[in-house]
């Protein structure tokens, strides 16, 4: 876990509790949900560090808190307590203005390429929007040039600039999402289920693209997924999450090869596998 230099991300005792508001339906007859406590701990005292250039994967089933954790890393959800040290600085201690400046180095890729792109904006505007926020002095043509360059790098042609999201397939939209995340050349990218909405053959294209871009731009990934096979392709470290806690974490080969937690074994055993086929 420890590295010789400061880890790019050092998360300490991170915790988030959501309150269960009593809803107007809660008192209806037939509703058997009776909660003695009205708090729900989504993320419970999580600690981990990520070194530069690593891909730290967080794997878990729905409801385990992995998305809450991912969003807290960028302060899209405000943690209750704990520390998030990004290059040694505690993000939670930053003023909103300082945090906004820091965000340029940390970007997010979302799961649903249909929901995460504004349908009324052209691709060029979507991709260049982070530039207009963080580099307001650039002219429109400079922004467009930057957008065209990163679109080309993710495998989209320049005429994508003037098109709308609905003109693209799911895989192409996810490339747009990646372009938007990378246009500011961030250091850390949090990817929340980036391939789970995509077809098998397209998902593989996007995974390979993410690996290439990681090499090229020296990116560090926090990769959230429910799928161990997907994580096995890309992760250097894996944390297995359940009910707000890490049940196990370590180097990817160790978690996949010699898991110690029973829950990890259960997850691994449930993965449907193709009979050992080697083709060609």
């Amino acid at each position, binding site marked *: 876990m420890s590295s010789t230099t400061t880890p790019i991300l050092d998360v300490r005792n991170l915790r988030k509790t959501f309150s269960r508001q009593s809803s107007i339906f809660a008192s209806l007859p*037939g509703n058997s949900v009776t909660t003695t406590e009205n708090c729900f701990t989504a993320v419970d005292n999580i600690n981990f560090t990520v070194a530069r250039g690593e891909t730290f994967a967080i794997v878990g089933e729905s409801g385990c808190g992995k998305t809450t954790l991912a969003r807290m890393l960028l302060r899209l959800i405000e943690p209750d307590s704990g520390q998030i040290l990004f290059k040694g600085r505690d993000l939670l201690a930053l003023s909103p203005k300082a945090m906004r400046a820091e965000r340029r180095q940390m970007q997010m890729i979302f799961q649903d390429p249909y929901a995460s792109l504004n349908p009324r904006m052209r691709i060029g505007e979507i991709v260049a929007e982070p530039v207009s926020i963080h580099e307001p002095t650039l002219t429109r043509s400079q922004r467009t040039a930057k957008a065209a360059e990163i679109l080309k790098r993710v495998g989209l042609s320049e005429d994508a600039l003037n098109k709308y999201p609905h003109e693209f397939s799911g895989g192409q939209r996810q490339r747009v999402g990646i372009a938007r995340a990378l246009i500011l050349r961030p250091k850390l990218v949090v990817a929340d289920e980036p391939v789970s909405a995509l077809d098998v053959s397209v998902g593989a*294209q996007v995974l390979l693209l993410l690996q290439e871009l990681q090499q090229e731009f020296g990116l560090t990934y926090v990769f959230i997924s429910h*799928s161990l*096979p997907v994580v096995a392709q890309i992760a250097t470290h894996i944390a297995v999450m359940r009910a707000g806690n890490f049940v196990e974490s370590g180097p990817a080969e160790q978690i996949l090869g010699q898991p110690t937690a029973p829950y990890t074994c259960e*997850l691994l055993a*449930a993965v*449907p596998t*193709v009979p050992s086929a080697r083709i060609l």
Partner: protein
Amino acid sequence: MHTPTEPLGKITNGNYHPTVTDLLDVRSLTVELPTPQGWVRPVNDVFLRIAKGESLGLVGESGSGKTMLSLALMGLLPTGARVTGEALLGTANGATKNLAQLSDSEWRSVRGREIAMIFQEPMTSLNPVMRIGPQIAEAIGAHEPGISTAATHQRTLEALQHAAVPEPQARARQYPHQLSGGLRQRAMIAMALAGKPNLLVADEPTTALDVTVQLQILQLLDRLRREMHLGLLFITHDLGVVAKVAERIAVIYAGRIVEEGDTHDVLTSPKHPYTQGLLAASPTLLRGKLSPIPGTVPQLSALPPGCSFAPRCSFHRAECDAVMPDLRPVKTSHTARCILV
């Protein structure tokens, strides 16, 4: 209606499950839909067979036509769709019905009773403002008008038990939102099987579920298939899932079956480049270089001439663009639509 001629490109040596009679025999089924670009064929000249108690996995990516095919088998195609070809279903009383040409009133005696369907996201198929029990009772009552309330109640609980829903009494009184995703899918299965159909069409029934829950549902479907001697058409994009649940696999691409055969044969020695590509692109627990299939699924309105997969195929030759190849026999009950076979 039953013609003895074998469909084109099919194995004709009689080894094709000779001991069981076919429950479903789909012959040259084509579905056409009107679009602004003209008529497109999401299902194109499809041949499929499912015997009683047999499971067939239909594998394809989005836009391959797998869902349209299942909707055609259920008589649920969007209005304006044109269907040609035959989908012959052997019914419980020994008659044969062509699902491609049923009237609305005929469908009422077939849908739910002879053939039933479960969907990917049970929350969108269940009525959110109706308790689980009455929803199943409604399905039972629709097929057996005049059944007593007590008998309906009894059958509802049996259906839930059958689908391995724990505490069926309590669950029957709950609403869909109070159930977990896995339990909702079990409730859907209970409802689908309440009319005691012979054929179950399952369209991506586990895609929205966690892996551990997915495994339970796959095991449940497999057990029910054996116990009820149920024909199962299992539609999925996941080769790992299909390996668990299906005895035979048909791979569909751009509306056409491109490879069909025993699950083990197709997955261990795939012959069509698309099947090979899908396998190479599927992540496994072993870290290896993933090989994506280049390009994307073609638009149905702009299919390439000849083989639909040719533009993405690494074995592409000039002949591929001339005509669409037939399904060619690889060996007994294994066919592939490729000139290299």
